[in-house]
């Protein structure tokens, strides 16, 4: 694996506003009994900072009861938008329905982006679980997603309260800022 495009990440910095935006974003599909999710986008480095929550929705996004899928066209739109800011995909956060554990499924492990250091986060209870400590946290490392336990999260996940995370919506046509969720 080429290390250059994927600098090692010691710490992910995530503002509470990003957590709030993430929870708010997944309520719409959750209300319809469907999975939903967001991308956490930001600056990647030894300390990686989530600058924006991007909500894929509409054209090019499939929300279903048992899966959430984003088409390549939407990835392309987000990629164009992120490259203008020199931002990278830091994490993918998605919901699991009621009664389904907040853990990566075999399908999740196969379908999620496979790049070193990318976070995969699972919100349980159909998106109603608002305590991030009870979410499933995973990092892609050495060719597979591995769970990040509470101790490691305490060391590597820095929650802040002093930044305004940007919130954007994305579909196959592009990204646009979201004023109110």
């Amino acid at each position, binding site marked *: 694996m080429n290390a250059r495009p994927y600098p090692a990440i010691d710490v992910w910095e995530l503002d509470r506003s990003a957590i709030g935006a993430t929870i708010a974003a997944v309520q719409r599909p959750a209300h319809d009994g469907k999975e939903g999710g967001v991308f956490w986008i930001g600056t990647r480095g030894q300390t990686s900072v989530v600058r924006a929550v991007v909500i894929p929705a509409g054209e090019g996004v499939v929300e279903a009861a048992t899966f959430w899928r984003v088409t*390549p066209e939407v990835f392309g739109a987000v990629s164009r938008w992120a490259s203008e800011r020199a931002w990278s*995909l830091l994490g993918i956060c998605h919901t699991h329905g009621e009664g389904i554990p907040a853990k990566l499924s075999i399908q999740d492990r196969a379908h999620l982006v496979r790049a070193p250091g990318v976070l995969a986060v699972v919100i349980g209870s159909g998106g109603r679980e608002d305590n991030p400590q009870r979410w499933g946290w995973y990092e892609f490392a050495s060719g597979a997603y591995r769970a990040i336990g509470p101790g490691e999260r305490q060391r590597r996940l820095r929650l802040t309260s002093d930044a305004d995370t940007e919130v954007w919506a994305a579909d196959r046509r592009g990204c646009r800022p979201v004023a109110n969720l």
Partner: protein
Amino acid sequence: MTTASETGAVLTGDPREIQVTVDYLPAAEPFHHRYTPETLAEIVREAAMKFFGVQDRQERDTYHYFLEIHGTRITDTSQPISTFLEHGHELHFHLVEQITPGSLW
């Protein structure tokens, strides 16, 4: 002057060379390389995939990486990259993954 690049493409010092950039959303830096206009898009796709450490794969589902430009996925990579040039001598692609569900879906 002719040199062999690390990606296998031959750089000729040709003033028509195209500066190619490929982004991949999870990566912190893009792939950059200069190619002759006749270089096939497949050469660029493979070099970018190697740089980003990803590969097409077939499991239960099929995973295939595409180059896209201006919102259009390049499905025919046998075309020379000059096909995608609108003006100037620069091309900016994005590498995206297509998942095709297998028969159990």
